[in-house]
């Protein structure tokens, strides 16, 4: 009987160790797959590149269209796309020494993976081919860079704005969207509706909303690069957490859980913002497209994220996240991979792809592009994406853990399991030792 326990344990650690076992074969494994001679460009056989991307469905189809276009103009470098939204697979492929030649990922993974050596720095190529990095939105590019190295190029970016239901605001006698955080608080109080014995019927704004966005509204910052200090206890961050906590406590966990349980699916006509259960919401540039699809009659407006009234220089704040392309470490044809990656992020291709999937382009030169004319809500978002107060979560090797811990403690603070100061201190205590 004792054996049962240990066999189970063995199986469990096996999982971990298979990966590590593969890690050792990195060098032996590469180049053995197709028997093609690596390097050397004067040959008749086209180089074949595998390209893993995380998009699926119609978004994947838009990318496949671009891949076909490339294969038509560059018969010497054949690209084969594969929709592969499980990013852990990329990890195992890279450590196994048999990575895809180009892959997509989320911006926040870039520096953690890049600094550990899973992604190839692109700087030499960028310099050689004179790619103008100045054309990229700084907040979008910064999430791919660390210590003077660029590990990936962002193809698309996301930023949130404030959406408001015009009818509900009018009914509550409110004129236009809130501009400052103070006004936002008043709006939330006025727009939330309780009925029979305090049962919530409508919320002004879901209080558990994204603390990252509001941190920038208060001028907060998560990392002090100069002093190598993580700063979850920074005044701006703390103000954002307290803001969320303030709204949360107006209603209480019990009532909010009950209310949340009755809310419909996000991607459906029952989306709480579409049905008027939320009078306002903070959401990304894709939402207008969903509204057109699921709730075409909704009267809504798009407004900048409110800012701290005591500090007008913080107008138009926002939290930027990106989708990127990168070249994994250990690829067989890095030059060809780069050629394809560079081509994909050129203005023409970027415009075509981002317009098709309703994401924002990361190049400022595209913000006036007419291809976005017909994408609902895009004029507001394109304009917003050039705001100087946009930030992305500081790119460090520990940002994944930092964001996890921050989110965990933020939720614990909202639910009253821990005080604001103590919660933020816990984040600091856990993350600071990871700074190197």
């Amino acid at each position: 009987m004792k054996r049962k326990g240990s066999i189970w344990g063995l199986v469990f650690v096996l999982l971990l160790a298979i990966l590590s076992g593969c890690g050792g074969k990195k060098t032996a494994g590469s180049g053995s797959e197709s028997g093609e001679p690596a390097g050397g460009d004067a040959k008749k056989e086209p180089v074949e590149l595998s390209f893993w991307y995380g998009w699926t469905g119609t978004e994947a189809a838009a990318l496949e269209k671009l891949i076909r276009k490339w294969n038509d103009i560059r018969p010497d470098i054949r690209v084969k796309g594969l929709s592969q939204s499980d990013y852990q697979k990329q990890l195992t492929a890279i450590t196994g020494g048999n990575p895809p030649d180009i892959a997509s990922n989320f911006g926040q993974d870039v520096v953690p993976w890049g600094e550990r050596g899973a992604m190839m720095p692109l700087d030499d190529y960028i310099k050689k081919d004179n790619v103008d990095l100045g054309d990229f939105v700084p907040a979008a590019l910064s999430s791919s860079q660390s210590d003077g190295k660029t590990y990936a190029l962002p193809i698309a970016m996301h930023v949130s704005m404030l959406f408001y239901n015009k009818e509900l605001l009018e009914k509550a006698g409110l004129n236009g969207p809130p501009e400052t955080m103070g006004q936002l608080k008043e709006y939330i109080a006025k727009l939330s509706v309780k009925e029979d014995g305090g049962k919530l019927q409508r919320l002004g704004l879901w209080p558990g909303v994204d603390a990252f966005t509001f941190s920038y509204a208060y001028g907060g910052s998560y990392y002090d690069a100069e002093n190598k200090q993580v700063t979850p206890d920074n005044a701006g961050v703390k103000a954002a957490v307290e803001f969320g906590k303030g709204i949360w406590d107006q209603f209480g966990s019990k009532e909010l859980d009950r209310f949340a349980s009755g809310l419909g699916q996000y991607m459906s006509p029952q989306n709480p913002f579409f049905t008027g259960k939320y009078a306002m919401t903070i959401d990304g540039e894709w939402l207008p497209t969903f509204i057109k699809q699921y709730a075409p009659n909704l009267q809504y407006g798009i407004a900048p994220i409110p800012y701290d009234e005591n500090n007008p220089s913080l107008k138009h704040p926002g939290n930027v996240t990106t989708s990127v392309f990168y070249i994994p470490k250990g690829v067989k044809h890095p030059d060809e991979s780069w050629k394809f990656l560079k081509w994909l992020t050129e203005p023409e291709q970027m415009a075509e792809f981002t317009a098709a999937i309703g994401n924002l382009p990361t190049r400022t030169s595209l913000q006036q592009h007419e291809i976005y004319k017909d994408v609902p809500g895009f004029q507001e978002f394109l304009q917003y994406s050039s705001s100087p107060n946009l930030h992305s979560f500081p790119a460090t090797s520990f940002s994944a853990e930092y964001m996890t811990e921050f989110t965990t403690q933020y939720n614990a603070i909202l639910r009253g399991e821990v005080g604001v100061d103590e919660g933020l201190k816990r984040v600091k205590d856990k993350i600071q030792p990871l700074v190197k």
Partner: protein
Amino acid sequence: MIDSISGKTPSRKKGWTRREWRYFWLGLVFASPWIIGFLIFTVYPFFSSLYFSLTEYDLFNPPRWVGIDNYKAIMEDRSFYKSITNTLFMAFISVPITLFSSLLIAMLLNFKVRGINYYRTMFYLPAVIPGVASALLWTWMLNPDFGLVNMFLRWVGLPDPAWLLDPRFTKPSLVLMGLWGSGAGALIFLAALQGVPQTYYEAAQVDGANWWHRFWKITVPALSPIILFQLIMGLIGAFQIFTESYILAGGKAGSGSSLGGPGQSLLFYAVNLYQEAFIHLKMGYASALAWILFIIVMLITLLVLKTSKRWVYYGGE
């Protein structure tokens, strides 16, 4: 293998004859596919994970020796304690409940009534459904507004909790899901039940024992080896619980959302380990977590086995 099945191999005073040696080597050759597989895929990873647990290792760079730092850090990690608490809840609440319901179902399925085979199939069916599918199914069953569970609760006038959204109810939700799958355990109990000689019951009945006495004094002792087996397997399963949490706690990790569900109430040991290994890229730390888990499971199993001497009866003894 040898010791637990047939007792022991006969021992001899003299050494082996040539012929016996020959058979020994031949036997080894025939068993070599398994032996080699065992060495490569079990023994090697087992020890390398022990080594990695003493290093800082991120998959990409060579492991760096840090001694017992990982273990020290784990002892100070709040998520570790949270995950242990959550996991122990499942082990000590869910496992006994499921065990009891399996036994109950098995006893019901042991009645000789018409169509019993259909009932048996019905109760076993949930065990055939893959974990992911059943977890997704239950998100609908437990939907606070339209879910069947709450519809029933409202109908009988009981409070209808927000099951998977309320941190206080997420684990009970999993217990409920576990109950649904107790047919698998029931099948094993059923097989054992049918092996209990009817003569015991008849004799007891003649002596005037009521149903409770018959259950407690005959059925339970007769099934005790099976109960022990199911208890241990159940405990091990509880420590491994992952799928349900990963599916129900929703959302992929990354982009700042953490695994573990509302208020980390579904952050089980394996979920925490996965998060450290594959999202935070801390393979050394995760290996240390795996070893601690191994030790915990072994201790609990030993404890159960030790106490089992007092309540498990083997027919042959």
